[in-house]
C-alpha cells in the first residue's frame, strides 16, 4: 500500500506537525508514505517527518498503472 499525500495533506507531513507521527508510524509499519514534491515546495515544507519521502506526481501515475492496484482518493 502507498499513501500519497497531495495538496494540503502534505502540511501534516511537516516535521513536528501534530499528526506527522501518525505518518511515521505508518511508514514503520511498512506503508510507503509519499508526499508530492510540488505541493511541499508550494507550501515551503522543507523538513518532513521521518519515513515520508518526497516524489513527483509521475510516481502516482506509475502506481495507478501498476496491475492489481486500486486508487482511492480521500
Amino acid at each position, binding site marked *: 500500500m502507498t499513501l500519497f499525500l497531495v*495538496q494540503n495533506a502534505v502540511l501534516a507531513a511537516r516535521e513536528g506537525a501534530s499528526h506527522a507521527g501518525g505518518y511515521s508510524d505508518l511508514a514503520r509499519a511498512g506503508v510507503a508514505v509519499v508526499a508530492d514534491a510540488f505541493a511541499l515546495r508550494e507550501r515551503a515544507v522543507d523538513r518532513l517527518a521521518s519515513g515520508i519521502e518526497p516524489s513527483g*506526481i509521475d510516481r*502516482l*501515475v*506509475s502506481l*495507478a*498503472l*501498476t496491475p492489481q*492496484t486500486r*486508487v482511492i482518493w480521500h
Partner: protein
Amino acid sequence: MTIGKNLTVAIMDPPYESATTATALRIIDAALRQAQVVTVFAYEGAVSMTMKAQQPHANPVKGTTVEQEEHPTTKDWIAGLFALARQTGAKLDWINCGLCVDERGAGETIDGPRRGSPKDFFEAVKLSDGVIVIPTH
C-alpha cells in the same frame, strides 16, 4: 512511455474553485508522458474547464493589465495537454458529461473535448490499466 497502458481519470470540480483542478491536470500531464491512452471523464462542474469563452483578466489589486497578469485559464492548460498528447503520440480522450454540459451551458468548448455520458466512462474504465476518480466536496 509505458507501452500500451491506458489510464482513466474522472474529475468533478469546476475550475478556479479547488486545489484538485491543478492536481488533476498535473496527473493527466504526467500520464500523457507514460500511458498510450488517457481518458478524462469530466463530470459536473469540471465540464466548465474546457469552455471556449473563458478569458484572462487584469488584476486591480496587483495593478497589472491583462497582458501583464497573464492569468491562466483552464481551457489553455487543457489545450496544452492536447498539444502534449500530439507530441508524445499518446491519445487524450477528454469527455465532458453531456447532461452536465447542458445544464451549465458549457457546450462551446475548445477543440479536442467531446460530449459523452456515463456509458463512455464505463467503456473507458473497462479498457483501462488504472482508474483515478477525484471526488469533490
